[in-house]
C-alpha cells in the first residue's frame, strides 16, 4: 500500500458508528494493516474518553420547581394567533438588543417578585469572574478580544 494521509472525517465517522456497513468493513480491514490510520483513530478515541472525563457541572437546585411557579402565573400558550406577550419584551426575544446585558434582573423581572427562592435570586447576579472551574484563566476564552 502506498503512503497516504489518513482521512480524518472518515475515521471520525467510524468512531461515531456513522459509516455504512460496507465502508465500515473496508475500514476495519484497512485499520488492521495501516499504522498511521490506526494511530489517528486511537487519538480520536482518547479525545472521546477525555470528553467523558470532563467535570460534570450541576445546576445545584431543582429548576423544574421554579419553572412550575413561573408557569402558574404565565398565560397558557396558544398556537395562533400570536399576540405580544410580556416576555416578548425581553431583550433575548428581540435578539438584537445588543447593548442590554441579560444578567441582572432577568430572573427577577421575569418572576415579578413571586415564587422567588433565594437561590434563584442569586442566579441573576452577574459574575465577572471566569466561569468556575471551566476556564483556566485564558483571557481569550469565549471570544478573542471581547473585553478589550
Amino acid at each position, binding site marked *: 500500500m502506498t503512503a497516504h*494521509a*489518513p482521512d*480524518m*472525517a*472518515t475515521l*471520525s465517522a467510524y468512531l461515531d458508528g*456513522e459509516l455504512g456497513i460496507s465502508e465500515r468493513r473496508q475500514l476495519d480491514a484497512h485499520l488492521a494493516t495501516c499504522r498511521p490510520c490506526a*494511530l*489517528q483513530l*486511537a*487519538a*480520536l478515541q482518547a*479525545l*472521546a474518553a*477525555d*470528553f*467523558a*472525563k*470532563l467535570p*460534570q*457541572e*450541576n*445546576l445545584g437546585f*431543582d*429548576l*423544574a420547581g*421554579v*419553572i*412550575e411557579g*413561573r*408557569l402558574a402565573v404565565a398565560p397558557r*400558550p396558544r*398556537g395562533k394567533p400570536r399576540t405580544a406577550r410580556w416576555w416578548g419584551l425581553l*431583550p*433575548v426575544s428581540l*435578539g438584537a*438588543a*445588543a447593548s*442590554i446585558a*441579560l*444578567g441582572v434582573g*432577568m430572573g427577577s423581572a*421575569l418572576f415579578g417578585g413571586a415564587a422567588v427562592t433565594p437561590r434563584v435570586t442569586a*442566579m*441573576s*447576579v*452577574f*459574575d465577572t469572574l471566569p*466561569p*468556575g472551574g*471551566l*476556564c*483556566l484563566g*485564558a483571557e*481569550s*476564552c*469565549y*471570544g*478573542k478580544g*471581547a473585553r478589550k
Partner: protein
Amino acid sequence: MTTRTDDAEDERLAAQAQTGDRQAFTLLVRRYQERVFRFILRMSGARDEAMDLTQETFMKAYQALPAWRPEARFGTWLFQIARNVTLDLLRRRRTVEFIPLDTGLPDGAALDPQDAAPLPEEQLADKQRIQLLERALCELPVEQREILLLRELENMSYADIAAMLNIEAGTVKSRLARARVAVLAHYRHHAGEK
C-alpha cells in the same frame, strides 16, 4: 444518550403538556434541566448566565410547545431552543465569529492529519489533557464547540445534529472531524507547556 423508551416518554409528556398540563411540562424540565444547563454552560462559559439561559430555554419551550410536532424528537427540539438562546447571548457579547467553516471544502478536505498526530501517552497526563480540553473548548469557534458538545456530551446522531443545526449530514461529518482535529492540535500545541 437517549433511548427509544426515553423518547416515547418525552413524546407522551410533551403531548400532554400541549393540552395545558403544566405538571407534564414540569416533568420534562426535570428530565432535561441538567443536560440543557451543561450544554449552555459549556457553550457560554459563564455559570450565572447559563442558569438564566436554562430557565429562559424552558420558558421559551413552553411558549413554543403548540408548534412542537412529534416528528421532531423533543430533546433535539429543546436543544435547538437552548442553542438559539445561547447564540443570542454570544452575539450580544459580540464574541461569536461566524466563519463559514465548511464552504467550498469537500468532505474531509483541509484536515491536516499532522495536526492530530498522536502524542506519546506519557507526554500528557490525564489531568492535563482534561484541562487542555476545557481550554480548547473555550477557544474553538462556536460552530466547532457546539458540534463537539452535541456529539461527545449529548451523544446525538449525525442525523439529529444535522436536523438541529439545519445542515447536511455530510457537513456534520466534516465539521465534527475538523473540530476534533482542532482540539488534538491544541493538545499538541500545548504539550510542551507545563
